[in-house]
């Protein structure tokens, strides 16, 4: 099942941890965002393969923006 990982809040992208093609499990970190002076990992909710990472370090994401797609 495909899952679209979206930003929960306004943040800047600090690090992109996962790469396209990576096999990821539940709780694996895809991207680390920075917001409210905190580094907030964005994690995978279901196991799968990373098919797309839409953001790059330094990007600003808003609530609801797509960060990655995991198939």
């Amino acid at each position, binding site marked *: 099942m495909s899952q679209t990982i979206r930003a*929960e*809040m*306004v943040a800047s992208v600090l690090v992109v941890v996962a790469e396209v093609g990576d096999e990821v499990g539940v709780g694996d970190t895809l991207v680390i965002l920075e*917001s*409210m*002076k*905190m*580094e*907030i*990992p964005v*994690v995978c909710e279901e196991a799968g393969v990373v098919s797309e990472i839409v953001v790059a370090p330094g990007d600003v994401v808003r*609530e609801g923006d797509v960060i990655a797609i995991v198939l």
Partner: protein
Amino acid sequence: MTEAAVAIDPRAPRARLANFFDDGQFVTITPEDDRGVLAAVGRANGANVVAFITDPTVQGGAMGSDGCRAIVTAYDRAFADSAPIIGIWHSGGARLREGVASLDGVGRVFAAMTRASGKVPQISVVLGPAAGGAAYGPALTDIVILAPAGRIFVTGPEVVRSVTGEDVDMESLGGPEPHGRRSGVVHIVADSEQDALDHARTLAALLGHQGSLNLDAIEDVDLGALLPESARRAYDVHPLIEGFVDAGSFEELHARWAPNIAVGLGRLGGRTVGVVANNPMRLGGCLDSSSAEKAARFVRMCDAFAVPLIVLVDVPGYLPGLGQEWEGVVRRGAKLLHAFAECVVPRVTVVTRKAYGGAFVAMNSSSLGATRVFAWPSAEVAVMGSVAAIRVLHRRRLADVPEDARAQVELELAAEHEVISGGITKALELKVVDEVVEPSLTRRAVAKIILDTPGVRGLHGNIPL
């Protein structure tokens, strides 16, 4: 009359009640006829409880005036026994063929529930559709548990389609996904019908058999090891909560709704406690309108049932944004301030990492009447983070500093600011923090405060905020 269930239809009231009560044993307290509701008394995990159940094998479980009277009888009994009451729901709502009489009956059920609110714990288990009046029944109670086949809605798919044109099925209208994640109607989404009944048994015992705190049973756990090394890194708070309460005892409520705060019941040294904890993994642990409302309702429930509270604080502030303001973060956030300020049960705060600004006040601060506020040695309590603070305080001076040197100057000013304004020392001087405690000794310290504080309960209902 004590009987084991002999019914064949698994949806029959007797079959379901047998799956709920200890050893399948119960005594009915209302007539077994075609009124569509059966009430019984028995035990759940050892606690005396009253349960009533709607009968989907009779007119789809619809509620008529006799059935509603049976529910009121169950409430009278719960009052008399001071016992938790569990409603097991599978009902299409009011009986159409009885007309207004059934509506009157449903209204009387609501009134009985409201009279009982905050006096006896009320738990609802929704096993099938619970529509219309059957939706608001569970909604008026303290805790709502939804089985996979449970559906809760005011108006069904056909009415929705004819009025709004929206084409939805019962599941997307009122199933586990919308109610577990979006609406906050449901506290626990269960894996199966039996799992739903088991959660109700556990919660009935947590609220009905609260036990007494045994200090000797408290083991020291190095809770500090459950935080990440970097103070800026977000983490999931659940391992910290599970390490704090007795092993395996945490029963989380509203796990997926407003997940930036975690609330639930567990035991500490054998005694039931409520836990409220910021969860930095979601929204950085910020308070927002939904999380404040979720925590406020939980705090008031614990207060009404004399459950002591443990508040684990790691909060960067309120979530900023237009959406929040328009959603009423001021009005809904005020509920949490009100809930803590009026709360009379022992309530102990532990600042694990940071507590900034208004969110610090809201998280059971001493100003709101916390019984005790502990902080871990490295915790920071401040109006805002020191760098953010000096950017405001020294805006002009920083503007004159060349850009390449600014970061360094900011760090120096921040260090200076921490010495003057903040840090734990200042918080201790002001009695904003009562005591610094080592993470590994925190369980014992909190347990001792709870043990030494008289057990009282808030005299108020538990309106479903």
